[in-house]
């Protein structure tokens, strides 16, 4: 199965019954898969919406009605969903949103890129809100994280973003769906399904009284703090004696891993820190290694976005070097090895 299809199948197995989306490369196999697969599911609902804006609002509708729901798109389409994502956060509604990032800005191209990091982690929409951002680096992780995304989303009543790219979406690797351990989730006592046997209620994000609005915002912040406490995921590879740590996620992390292995073969003490959650960011992990690592090489398929989170984690306690390739270029492990070793010798390790 290709990455895109893996995400679809994982969603279905996690109990997703609704998909709404609008075609865009490089993620079309996902809606195409869902369009077929959801006809096989009882209560399965698939709509190819008239736009991404419509899709994200359908997501809101299905979510508030109590269904597990997913949408997916790629960069320009995700930009169009920003208002809706802000509403989902304001309304505290769960949803899983997949972004198969492509080269930008504008129409850009359809090659793998990581230049929507800011948009994803800082909220491209308006207001103080956060979405959980998961960055898989393999088909297996696409499966695992997609399934977990639904649970995280339901548990905290907050949208979860899955950030990948065309390479992960197109790639085929063996996958099992058996890793999923469903969480215990609170009852959905907020959903809007008609006031049968209970008082009427409503869901809204408009709060005219500024004091109440402020309290709502602080409530969200408390929730985000809780998520930060509980949900951080990060992978460490060959870090124990590392003098240089490469920090990379997703596709870039795969490449970085290859580079680290080769560099190790050349005797360089290099390791890899791979954030799996981009928000909440594994700042503590980064900070922890500042004691033994002398240089953090941030490697992104962008002009430099995650580097801010690395610097915010380190607060000057270690040096940071950036290597990035924006615009859809897929760097090779070898070019990264070159960067690493030149830094390695320059610093005189």
């Amino acid at each position: 199965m290709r990455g895109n299809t893996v995400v679809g199948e994982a969603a279905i197995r996690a109990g997703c019954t609704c998909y709404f989306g609008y075609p865009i490369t490089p993620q079309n196999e996902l809606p195409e898969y869902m369009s077929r697969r959801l006809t096989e599911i009882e209560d399965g609902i698939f709509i190819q919406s008239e736009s991404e804006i419509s899709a994200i609002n359908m997501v809101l509708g299905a979510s508030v009605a109590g269904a597990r729901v997913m949408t997916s798109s790629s960069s320009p389409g995700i930009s169009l969903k920003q208002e809706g994502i802000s509403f989902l956060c304001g309304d505290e509604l769960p949803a899983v949103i997949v972004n198969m990032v492509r080269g930008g800005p504008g129409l850009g191209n359809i090659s793998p890129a990581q230049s929507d990091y800011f948009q994803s982690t800082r909220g491209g929409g308006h207001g103080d809100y956060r979405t959980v951002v998961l960055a898989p680096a393999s088909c297996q992780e696409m499966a695992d994280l997609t399934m977990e995304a639904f649970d995280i989303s339901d548990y905290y009543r907050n949208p979860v973003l899955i950030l990948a790219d065309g390479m992960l979406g197109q790639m085929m690797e063996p996958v099992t769906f058996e890793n999923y351990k469903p969480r215990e989730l609170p009852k959905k006592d907020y959903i809007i399904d008609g006031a049968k046997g209970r008082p009427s209620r409503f869901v809204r994000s408009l709060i005219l009284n500024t004091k109440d609005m402020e309290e709502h915002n602080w409530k969200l912040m408390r929730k985000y703090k809780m998520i930060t406490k509980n949900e951080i995921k990060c992978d460490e590879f060959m870090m124990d004696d590392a003098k240089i740590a490469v920090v990379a996620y997703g596709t870039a992390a795969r490449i970085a891993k290859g580079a680290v292995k080769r560099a190790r073969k050349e005797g360089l003490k290099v390791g890899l820190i791979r954030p799996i959650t981009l928000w909440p960011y594994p700042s503590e992990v980064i900070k922890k290694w500042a004691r033994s690592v002398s240089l953090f090489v941030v490697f992104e398929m962008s002009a430099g976005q995650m580097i801010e989170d690395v610097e915010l984690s380190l607060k000057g306690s270690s040096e940071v070097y950036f290597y990035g390739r924006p615009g859809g270029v897929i760097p090779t492990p070898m070019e990264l090895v070159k960067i690493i070793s030149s830094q390695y010798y320059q610093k005189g390790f």
Partner: protein
Amino acid sequence: MKKVYSRPKYLKKVPMHYCPGCGHSIVAKLITELVEEMDIADRTICIPPAGCAVLLYNYFDFDCVESAHGRGGAIATAMKRVLPDRVIFTYQGDGDLAAIGTAETIHAANRGERFTTIFINNAVYGMTGGQMAPTTLFNQKTTTSQFGREMRRDGAPIKMSEMLATLDEGVAYIERTTVIDVPSIKKTKKAIKKAFQIQMDDIGFSLVEVLSPCPTNWKMNPLQSCKWIDEDMTKVFPLGVIKDITENKKVKEAVNAD
């Protein structure tokens, strides 16, 4: 003496924020009357718009979901598909439905989604202070058409109902009414009832367009507003049934069959 008219059961006992003589208040009242009469309060869901009616959930004593400006059609689509046996309606202004929500409205209607849209046409953006709406009449002055709407700059008042009626079988019922006097109020109520019935009978998309006074932004008093609807607005937006496929024999039979 017996009480023969009391405040509708599902209209919460709080003052509404609308201006004096605002058509929104009348329609809100009608809807709660209907929900009571049709005994559907426990399965009715309203999707209020961004617009003067944004706070409807404070008045309706049944479930409501806020929508982003113009997106009611998309939200209702998904809700109704997830909850096919609920009575779901969007409540939208002319800015909401005919400007920013054009695509959502047309495509939901075209898919024949089984929800109802109550379309409050007051020829103006009420909530934001009286800007030109897609339905503003020619020469009508608004804060963004200060010398009156003109074809060349602003285009023509859009007749959404007529446009929607050109869509295929998905669109079951469209009627345009108003609320400027007791007979027209009663007609509006009947139309909304029919629209609800049509979604409950699983026939298709239904919409009731209500020409509705906005005395504040028209800078008229309430009675003048009603007169203006009667004399000017209905010329451009004629009242009456615009589409009704239940008049079609086959549908009639199918509906009567169950």
